[in-house]
């Protein structure tokens, strides 16, 4: 029996500023030997300990196709994330996981994929996006729509440019409020649907972002003919244990940590508080 609460010590091998309050942390197990990698699926999450502050769940933002290290993107919003933001290269944290169901990659095979992200909702999608791009031949058309409040709030700025340049990716980005340097789209994420042609019958749509954005994006997708089963999102809840024991993330008799966090809209509709 493995102790389910025992974290594995990992080191921060890179810390990168994304926005004024958001950083991406690259982690690697301290005792990383042969095969002692972090094995996960895109869409899964892990429990990150900042020793002395406790632990909290964060989504894995990197792709399992790049297994040497793994990444997570965290906004500074409380005691634990504040303490995490103070840590730098070489410092140690604890890792438990991975937990949750993750995205179903097999179901996505051969399909066209539409990613719709808002603000800090891009990290869980990024794990799947890079997984798809690293195995590009297995999938159909890839469309990425992303938006944030202001140009400063966009995460992975370098990669957004890279996606914009790739011939095998259709990429559109928008901001709610532009600044003087911004020459691109202005408006909320759903305006980007006008820039692209969607094929609901052959497409899976992955939607992550703030609740208000999800509501409007999903409504638009249904209007455009997407079926509930083809619209996939990840749910967020207050979590402690990550393994379906502590009951913080329960919705009815389902647990976001164990039955989710990835659900399609058919499933989400059946979740009863």
């Amino acid at each position, binding site marked *: 029996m493995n102790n389910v*609460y025992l974290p594995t010590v990992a080191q921060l091998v890179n810390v990168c500023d994304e926005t004024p309050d958001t950083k991406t942390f690259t982690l690697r197990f301290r005792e990383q030997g042969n095969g002692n990698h972090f094995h996960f699926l895109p869409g899964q999450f892990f429990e990150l300990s900042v020793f*002395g502050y406790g632990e909290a769940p964060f989504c894995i933002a990197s792709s399992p196709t790049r297994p040497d290290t793994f990444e997570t993107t965290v906004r500074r919003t409380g005691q634990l994330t504040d303490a995490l933001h103070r840590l730098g290269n070489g410092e140690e944290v604890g890792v438990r996981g991975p937990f949750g169901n993750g995205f179903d990659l097999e179901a996505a095979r051969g399909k066209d994929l539409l990613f719709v992200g808002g603000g800090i909702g891009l990290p869980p999608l990024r794990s799947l996006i890079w997984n798809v791009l690293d195995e590009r031949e297995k999938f159909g058309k890839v469309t990425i729509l992303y938006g944030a409040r202001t140009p400063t709030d966009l995460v992975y700025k370098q990669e957004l440019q890279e996606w914009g340049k790739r011939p095998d990716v259709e990429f559109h980005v928008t901001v709610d409020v532009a600044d003087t340097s911004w020459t691109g789209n202005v408006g909320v994420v759903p305006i980007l649907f006008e820039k692209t042609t969607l094929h609901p019958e052959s497409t899976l749509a992955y939607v992550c972002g703030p609740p208000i954005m999800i509501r409007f994006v999903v409504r638009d997708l249904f209007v455009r003919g997407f079926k509930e089963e083809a619209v996939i999102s990840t749910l967020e*809840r207050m979590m402690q244990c990550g393994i379906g*024991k502590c009951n*913080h993330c329960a919705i009815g008799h389902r647990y976001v940590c164990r039955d989710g966090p990835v659900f399609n809209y058919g499933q989400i509709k059946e979740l009863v508080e």
Partner: protein
Amino acid sequence: MQPITLTLQKRDGTQWLEKLLSLGEVIAPVHGSGEDVIFSTAACADAVLWDFVNPLHPPKRIVLPQTDPLVKIKDNGQGHEVEPIYDDAPRILFNARSCDAKGIAFLTRMHEMEPADESYLRRALRLTVISLACTAPCPLGFCVCTNSGPFLSDGYDVQLTDLGENYLVEVASQKGHATVSCAPSLFRPATESEIAQRKRLEAEARNHFGEETCHFASAMRRVSTGRVSDALWQRISDWCLECGACNFVCPTCYCFSVKDLGRNGGWVRCRMWDSCQYTAFTLEASGHNPRPERKERMKRRFFHKVSAQYYQRDAMVGCVGCGRCIKACLGTTSMPAVVNAIRKGKWNE
């Protein structure tokens, strides 16, 4: 192991307890300060009570302490060391009432579910539960409605029944067997008539529960299908003071949070009791709270305890009928009151 049924003469009870005290910590109902009866470590055989009203706090903290150390974390200068903390001390829970034995069995089944919780299970595996069947209902109990008393058919290692001159000793497990085999001279096989007497006592005890019990079945139907109006949840929660007492005195409540506590220059990661009735139980870092209102949290509590969905998973309702929530609640939201309101579709004014 085949269950065996023995008889112990009442006057040998003390001698048996003295033997058990030499095997490990014996936790039993004892007098606390003042008039209170509490579950605590018995200092000597005479301290153990045989005739008592069940203490307000169940013995759940033996297997699930309020602050339960899980992992030791230390920074040794070169880096962090983490190691699990286990509690392997052998313990005997003596004279627990049927409801409390069943409560511990419920907690153990829940912690055995994949992924199994080793911290809990190692403690529970070393615990021997010796229960004392109830030959009369306690003032607030309704265990007949939850299949957790007054007598048990499972969930104990040893079950004692007061037969007047003797105790009937039903031994159901290897752990239970160890507690009688350490004093073989005190026990003799039970006679047919003693076993018949136990059956009679159980039937009599069942008959003594009044009509004012707790009818789960129709409440379960309504809770499971969401057929309890918002207005009724609102009314039910009107007198909830969000103190969490119902959770903390409940033998089956186990929700928890995890925190790091500073200890000896390092930290101990602890699991701590939490309450689904607190606002912050579901409060997310973003500020979003899916259950901001008391009625929603009340609904959650009773869904977890009474719904068919959880009944299917746990093979019992999340209640052992001990009646502690009736006593602990400063308002009016005890299990029987809420089940009754749900069943009737209105609050009993």
